[in-house]
């Protein structure tokens, strides 16, 4: 399946389009997705720190997902770096 990952904040610099698509196996967990995203970014956007990705959360429009949870069926995700807002 395809995971379509929306980028925000400092992670926007990982792709000019503001999103990354990754192929992931069915039933893939958020933790596995995180490792695939780290590998992808290491290759395509080495300026973005791996540390930032490890401190980022994944979420849908509705909720934040933890590492043990599966990637949602529609594959739509946002990656949420640490916030400094407000």
């Amino acid at each position, binding site marked *: 399946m395809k995971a379509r990952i*929306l980028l*925000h*904040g*400092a992670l*926007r610099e990982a792709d000019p389009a503001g999103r990354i698509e990754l192929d992931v196996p069915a039933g893939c967990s958020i933790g596995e997705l995180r490792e695939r995203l780290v590998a992808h970014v290491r290759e395509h956007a080495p300026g973005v720190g791996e540390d930032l990705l490890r*401190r*980022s*959360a994944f*979420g*849908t*429009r*509705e*909720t*934040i997902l*933890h590492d043990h949870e599966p990637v949602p069926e529609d594959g739509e995700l*946002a990656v*949420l*770096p*640490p*916030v*400094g*807002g*407000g």
Partner: protein
Amino acid sequence: MENLHVEIVDRSEAKLNVAAALEFVADPRFGGIANFVGRVREFNRDREVTGITYDLFEPLVLKTFREIGARTLAEVGAPLKLWIAHAQGDLGLGDPAVVVAAGTPHRDEAFRACRLTIEALKHEAPIWKQEHYADGDSAWSEGCSLCDEHREAERAAAGFHGTDHG
């Protein structure tokens, strides 16, 4: 919840409206109205700031605001009207970035509601801040992790009161 208004305002369309916030939280039952406005300020950690770009994931921000509002309502335990608004896009010096207003019967509850809400917003809402500096440089704020595991450690390390902008 008709007692709660949450909104994201794109700076290219409008500024945050404090007067509308104060009007929304007014009520014949309420004697106390507390309000907080966070504005873009000129210096942050000795660097001259010329503007801030706010980037946010709108559906999750609005949901977070609603959750924060429900929690404040439960914690304050009094009749309450609450307004939570945040700007997105490119803000200039002095522009309002965030507005919280709380109306309650008495002033202690109003202050508590307003403070609880802005603290929760600063720590939990998926909003990113990119500061632009007079020297042409810019930087994303190093903030709080949205992962629970990281958040607890960060809040403990930082103490309760953030000192970041606003």
